[in-house]
């Protein structure tokens, strides 16, 4: 249920906001409008919570803490410091964002469960603190705090159409901010973090910072929601901001559908209208209905309402437009969520596999490149709790060569790549192009020209093939997220460079153009491996590390990967590749190193190594010989 992080929800979002703007024409009753107002206020914060869970993979069961901060700060600075209401709202939003960033950075280290419990706790603690005597000078303690009236001219923003449209503007702002965030560098990076933190780090993403930035954004819009809530209720009391409300907010996001921005808005409107429509008799009866429906939705349609609507629209379009391709642009974003199970294989059959070269020909004899090595490993050692994973590996990779590492399971091949890319601390020295990089962190090694792929590609399923490569093309993730969201010329230029580098990488690998704009979740395993290589290449590395690019592929796809690596080599990039498939190694490798039990067994030209008796023993097994 947390797997989606949709990319194309702009038009549905616009449509829903438009409908909400027009709703007062139809919904004229005062109490009915009031229900929509409350729904929109929850939605303001729910959208931010969706950014947190759906797009950055974090949890919060205590988001009403930030509603409280927004509301109380806004009300308090007006009462105690006599601020005008506009700066008061800004202060409320900023305070919420700041506290969210601080608390977020405390909780970032906790994983899934820890953050759920931690934030839940926080919600309860906040209520205690607000109602307690310690802060009562500012918050009014359990007596509460009156919100001074907010007016424009003669109109009060706390009632009628003025209230409705003020809240609507806040919601539109929140949706726009969050949508924009998902499109810029920071949002893209957060989605990779959600997919796999280690992969993100290797792509130069600063994982901790991206998580905190998502927290701050979610906190900010929750603070804005809090200010709106203050306008609506007119009087703040601690139990408006309890853990039940936080949990309801999370439930609304889950029910609306995470990773869709629109879903949570849908969820909030759906709930408040349903609950109040059927159970206007008592508060606890409506609570009962609310929790029953939440439970029913998360048990029966665990992907949420947005997914349901999406599927429905897609089916309708398919019915109406028989013969017309479903993925026609007019079909809109709803068409994007083709279930991989049904349309995946068919789509694959329709497109040629990338650069298929089936004939396996032996590697033509080629002189082993001379000159100073690009990469030099000296006595690399790694211990895993007393188990020697690598016991003093020496390795030299010449500039421009394709160097293969082979060896049985558990020989330490992946660990060796981890040492080179900087994920795995090790003893010994790693020298790149004459410079000792042993002490340098992952991101600096990346900047120095070391890129890598993983056994499992870890692409962001809801981004297209091309977008996934673009993420790899970002030279840096520095810079302010606010400036990024403003879309200044500097940012645009930076992004254009990234796009060009991504195109170059895709073209270098001969990846078929027809598949560039397909979501990564719908690519075949072979195509995903290509995109993973392209993503690593897009950073224009000197040295490309490939971890089992052929694992899980069929013969044809292995041929395609071999073709791609040959292209990379022609482009002058040095390649260090782990492989099991000996035919593949024969075809692509200039030299070959065999690892066994964490040590180098032998090293030499591929042809020599693969006929070595010792090597044959390692692969075929000599244990039974006696």
């Amino acid at each position: 249920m947390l797997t989606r992080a949709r990319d194309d929800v702009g038009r549905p979002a616009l449509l829903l906001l438009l409908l909400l703007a027009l709703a007062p024409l139809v919904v004229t009753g005062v109490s009915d409008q009031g229900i929509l107002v409350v729904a929109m206020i929850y939605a303001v914060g729910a959208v931010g919570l969706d950014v947190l869970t759906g797009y950055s993979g974090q949890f919060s069961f205590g988001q009403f803490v930030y509603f409280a901060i927004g509301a109380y700060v806004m009300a308090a600075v007006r009462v105690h410091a006599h601020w005008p209401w506009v700066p008061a709202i800004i202060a409320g939003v900023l305070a919420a964002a700041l506290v969210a960033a601080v608390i977020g950075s405390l909780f970032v280290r906790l994983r899934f469960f820890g953050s759920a419990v931690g934030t839940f706790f926080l919600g309860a603690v906040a209520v205690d603190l607000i109602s307690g005597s310690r802060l009562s000078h500012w918050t009014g303690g359990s007596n509460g705090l009156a919100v001074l009236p907010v007016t424009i001219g003669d109109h009060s923003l706390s009632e009628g159409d003025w209230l409705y449209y003020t809240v609507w503007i806040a919601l539109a702002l929140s949706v726009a901010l969050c949508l924009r965030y998902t499109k810029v560098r920071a949002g893209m990076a957060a989605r990779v973090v959600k997919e796999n933190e280690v992969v993100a780090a290797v792509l130069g993403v600063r994982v901790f910072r991206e998580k905190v930035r998502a927290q701050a954004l979610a906190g900010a819009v929750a603070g804005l929601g809090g200010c709106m809530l203050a306008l609506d209720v007119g009087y703040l009391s601690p139990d408006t901001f309890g853990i039940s409300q936080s949990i309801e907010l999370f439930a609304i996001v889950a029910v609306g559908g995470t990773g869709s921005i629109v879903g949570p808005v849908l969820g909030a409107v759906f709930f408040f209208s349903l609950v109040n429509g059927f159970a206007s008799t008592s508060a606890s009866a409506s609570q009962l209905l609310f929790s029953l429906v939440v439970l029913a939705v998360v048990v029966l349609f665990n992907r949420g309402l947005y997914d349901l609507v999406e599927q429905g629209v897609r089916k309708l379009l398919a019915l109406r437009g028989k013969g017309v391709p479903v993925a026609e642009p007019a079909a809109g974003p709803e068409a994007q969520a083709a279930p991989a199970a049904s349309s995946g294989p068919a789509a694959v059959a329709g497109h040629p596999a990338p650069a298929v070269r089936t004939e396996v020909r032996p590697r033509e004899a080629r002189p082993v490149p001379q000159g100073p090595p690009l990469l030099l490993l000296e006595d690399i050692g790694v211990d895993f709790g007393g188990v020697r994973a690598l016991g003093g590996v020496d390795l030299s990779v010449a500039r421009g060569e394709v160097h293969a590492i082979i060896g049985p399971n558990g020989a330490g091949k992946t660990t060796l790549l981890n040492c080179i890319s900087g994920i795995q601390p090790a003893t010994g020295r790693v020298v790149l192009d004459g410079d000792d990089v042993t002490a340098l962190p992952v991101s600096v090694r990346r900047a120095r020209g070391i890129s890598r792929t993983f056994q499992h590609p870890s692409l962001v399923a809801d981004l297209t093939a091309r977008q996934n490569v673009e993420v790899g093309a970002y030279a840096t993730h520095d810079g302010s997220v606010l400036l990024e969201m403003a879309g200044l010329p500097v940012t645009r230029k930076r992004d254009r460079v990234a796009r060009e580098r991504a195109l170059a990488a895709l073209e270098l690998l001969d990846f078929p153009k027809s598949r560039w704009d397909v979501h990564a979740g719908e690519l075949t395993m072979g195509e995903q491996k290509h995109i993973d290589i392209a993503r690593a290449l897009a950073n224009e590395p000197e040295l490309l590390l490939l971890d089992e690019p052929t694992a899980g592929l069929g013969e044809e796809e292995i041929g395609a990967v071999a073709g791609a690596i040959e292209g990379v080599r022609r482009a002058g990039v040095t390649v260090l590749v782990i492989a099991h498939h000996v035919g593949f190694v024969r075809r692509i490798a200039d030299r070959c190193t065999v690892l066994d039990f964490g040590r180098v067994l032998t090293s030499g030209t591929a042809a020599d190594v693969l006929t070595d008796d010792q090597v044959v023993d390692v692969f075929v097994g000599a244990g039974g010989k006696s």
Partner: protein
Amino acid sequence: MTAVSEEKARQEQAGAGLSIEDLHVRFSGARVLDGLSLAVAPGEIVGLAGRNGAGKTTTLRAISGLATRNRGVVRLDGTPLPARPEAVARAGVAHVPEGRGIFADLTVEENIRLGIVRKVPAEQTLRGALEEAFPAVVRLRDQKAGRLSGGEQQMVALFRGLIGSPRVLLVDEMSLGLSPRALRTAIEALAALGRAHGIGVLVVDQNSRMLHEHCDRVYLLGDGRVRLWEDASDIASAYFE
């Protein structure tokens, strides 16, 4: 086909033991097994070899139901095996998984007791025969299993796999952590116990020479299918294509 394997083939048609027909397994679109068929008759020890990533472990997991079988049938004594692992175990298939699956916080004896899958009277278990075959395990009975060496753990895992007298025993990565001598002892014991009690044994290992030496026959796994290993050239093609 050799005479021996023809004899086995006849037994398979009679339906005794484990038989796999046209097994397909896919992981996220990639075909891991693509029409694999093989059989293990009661009392027979069969090897399954292949390079890394060829799908050996997946084959065993598909038999046990840990991996979803996309197509094909797995039968035990002529009856199709159910999909869920616990039901497969109750039907009489014991599986020593990759990494041995030892419960480190439990004692050796507790580990072994967990191997008695169906409630049977003590005298119907193979405890006596196993204690003769693996005397070291008896000595370690009250130790926490996590403190044992890799080789000792492998003994415990085999002991646990056989104690409930299953119809078929699946062993993944047989040689892992065993010295050549311990490996020889263990696999000989396995073969003897299997023959004596009519248990079919399917052993997976990278070390195909070892399998060739000790097993009644060896299948080579490549491209998601198997073929019988007949001579040395087969092995070269399985590993060095």
